């Protein structure tokens, strides 16, 4: 595949804009569907091959139109704009001696001499798009031009290739993607003295368990209902919920992450997962040096590799502790907290200066969604989360795994109490009327 013939959509300058608009023209097909009623409308496909030539012909025609639109357009890049990139085998990196272009905003690192250093996956991505012409650095005055096939041969492991596929996919969709280990961290230290904390937490757990057991055991004895009485279903549920302890999800994203002791048993090896990519949504003011907290963190997982298995819960917990990306639930919460403070301030000022006006708290109550809805949203969304890009023979599917906590959300319905209220209201109404 000749590099010159490849088009690059985004990074090119204004003089090649005409070519791009030509490529994207699908109007032939649209016209065709409008003119003839024979071709099934979009969305209503034939269920299966029926063996007729007519169907075959229709399919061929539709396909041909697609290929024609692709083939007839002139594609390529302007020679003036091409940049040469050189691959170095020893460091598995590439450099661009005279870098320019939009890609510099989100990719590569420029050293003091003005040379831009690219990660290998960045290099392959840019070469595939035609932004960079790849060369192999052989000597001081001899460079070997590389094809895309050559570049793929330089991937060092199948994991790297998987990572590249995910990287290129997200990148093509417009996300800002960086390798996770190159990002400057903001004070995140690993827990090293786990032995001492484990000892303390162990003894604490013991005492804790003793207490919970003391509370639990009489509940399940037959004399229990002779001693205790419940006046609402809620009390009954509260008693029931004491039996099984649960892990609480980390709700507030704190930069100095809380080091909770994760009990890792020595008998089973816990695999240490590493976050592969940090991903930001496309935004204008992105800075490579101070990127901020990523929107998503991505782990690449190959489902067919024998060395990789879907994480166990211990591994999940380890991962969730390491995460930095902001989860939607937490940001929502912070918003509401801030909103509450503002609301209170407003109410205070309202009371202070304009005693006659209605306080803003009432308005807020109306605007807020019902408690039930936010609870269900919370449960559906979960708290801290990461994205797992699952690779299956070249097909990438993404899943979002988030830590959740059902234990602190009680959803019981107290029917008896509700009905008492309702009947009271009913009873109250007529008396008012008579009065």
């Amino acid at each position: 595949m000749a590099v010159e013939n490849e088009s690059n959509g985004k990074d090119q300058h204004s003089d090649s804009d005409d070519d791009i608009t030509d490529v994207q023209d699908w109007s032939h097909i649209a016209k065709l569907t409008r003119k003839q009623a024979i071709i099934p409308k979009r969305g209503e496909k034939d269920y299966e091959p029926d063996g007729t030539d007519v169907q075959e012909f229709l399919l061929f025609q539709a396909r041909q139109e697609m290929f024609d639109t692709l083939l007839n357009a002139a594609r390529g890049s302007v020679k003036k704009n091409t940049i040469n990139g050189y691959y170095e085998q020893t460091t598995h990196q590439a450099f661009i001696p005279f870098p320019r272009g939009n890609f510099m905003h989100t990719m590569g690192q420029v050293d003091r001499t003005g040379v831009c250093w690219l990660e290998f996956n960045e290099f392959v991505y840019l070469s595939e798009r035609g932004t960079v012409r790849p060369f192999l650095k052989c000597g001081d005055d001899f460079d070997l031009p590389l094809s895309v096939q050559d570049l793929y041969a330089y991937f060092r492991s199948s994991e790297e290739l998987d990572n590249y596929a995910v990287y290129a996919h997200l990148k093509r969709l417009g996300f800002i993607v960086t390798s996770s280990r190159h990002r400057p961290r903001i004070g995140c230290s690993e827990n090293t003295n786990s032995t001492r904390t484990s000892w303390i937490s162990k003894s604490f757990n013991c005492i804790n368990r003793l207490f919970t057991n003391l509370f639990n055991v009489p509940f399940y004895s037959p004399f229990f209902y002779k001693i205790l009485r419940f006046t609402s279903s809620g009390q009954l549920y509260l008693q029931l919920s004491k039996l099984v302890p649960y892990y609480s999800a980390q709700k507030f994203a704190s930069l100095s992450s809380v080091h909770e002791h994760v009990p890792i048993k020595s008998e089973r090896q816990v695999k240490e997962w590493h976050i592969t990519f940090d991903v930001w949504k496309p935004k204008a003011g992105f800075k490579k040096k101070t990127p901020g907290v990523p929107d998503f963190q991505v782990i690449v997982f190959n489902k067919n590799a024998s060395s990789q298995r879907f994480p166990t819960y211990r591994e999940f917990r380890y991962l969730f502790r390491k995460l930095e990306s902001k989860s939607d639930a937490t940001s929502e919460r912070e918003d509401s907290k801030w909103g509450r403070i503002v609301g209170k301030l407003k109410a205070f000022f309202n009371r202070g200066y304009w005693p006659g006006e209605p306080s803003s708290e009432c308005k807020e109550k109306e605007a807020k969604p019902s408690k039930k809805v936010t609870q269900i949203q919370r449960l559906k969304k979960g708290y801290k989360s990461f994205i797992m890009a699952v690779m299956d023979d070249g097909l990438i599917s993404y899943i979002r795994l988030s830590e959740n906590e059902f234990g602190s959300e009680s959803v019981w319905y107290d029917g008896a109490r509700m009905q008492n209220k309702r009947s009271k209201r009913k009873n109250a109404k007529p008396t008012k009327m008579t009065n």
Partner: protein
Amino acid sequence: MPKYVRDAYRYKYPLPIHPLDHLPPLIPHNPISWAYWLFCYLSGSNEPQVRVHAEMDDLKRVTVCREQDMRLLWDNGFFGTGRMSRSEATWRQRTAKRLGLESSERGLESVTEKRRQRRLQFKRERSKFEAAKLELRQKGDLACEILDQERLFLRSLRDKELAYDKDDDDVVFREIDHELLDDAGEVMPIEVLELMPVEAIFLSFALPVLDLQVPTLMSTLVSSNATFADIESLATKYVAYHHYRSRGWCVRSGVKFGCDFLLYRRGPPFQHAEFAVMVLNADETLDYTQYSSTARVVGGARKSFVVCYVERQVSERQILQFWQNHNYASAFSSFKIGEVTYRRWVPGKNRD
């Protein structure tokens, strides 16, 4: 008044243990009301007077046979599944309705059946249409108005399928149906309610509802000289079941959706299940296809997929010891629950 009031009264209590909710009003300045309130409070008890009779068989199945018991378990927390019904044991009413013995209103099953019949009719018409199209195509004929008309007709059928209307069914009394009737001419109560093992444990260990002794029940479900491996899966499931039940969820079997449990906010008559739970051991990991396919099935029914991990906190020997000493509370509370939500993520939809 909204339509669900009748259901709201029928399913007033979320659990078979009822709270003391008919206490007299307490008037602060009236000491007699205090005394009366105290009397009512002390004389009342949450414990039900009569226990539900349950039977166990060799196949580790726990069943409830009496009709009032089946109704009690269904109305108060939606426990168990009728053996000849979809979930609530309604076979007897349905049969009586079918044979024209009584005019009960429509059950959930008959609504579904009607819908399925309509669907079948639609599919028949569609295949007819497809055949006609194929014939025309083989003749080399492409454009014709008949097809358009057919298409419109199919669409109207499809719309009708979704609409539900009442129409009377014909009573068909077959020869074999006579065997279902007793001497008085009524349908014999042959349906039983079957409880999941975890439900049986919950109703006898956590709540005093069934007339089973907990140790006997446990020794039926797992043999009395069980190893840890034997009790582990049952204990894991029960711990998860109890966890969700005690937070107020109505937990029912998720076997229809390829997972362990379904969580309803109040119960099946009120709304669809919102969550589907897969229970796993904390050290367990499955092939990715398992998670993915379960998530697909569950997602197709508009439920959220939750993987519930149960982690053992103490040694296996200790749990086994608790179990053998019939100290089930300690055995169950030595597990800890953790949850992970699994959702599909579409990059294009999360960009801005």
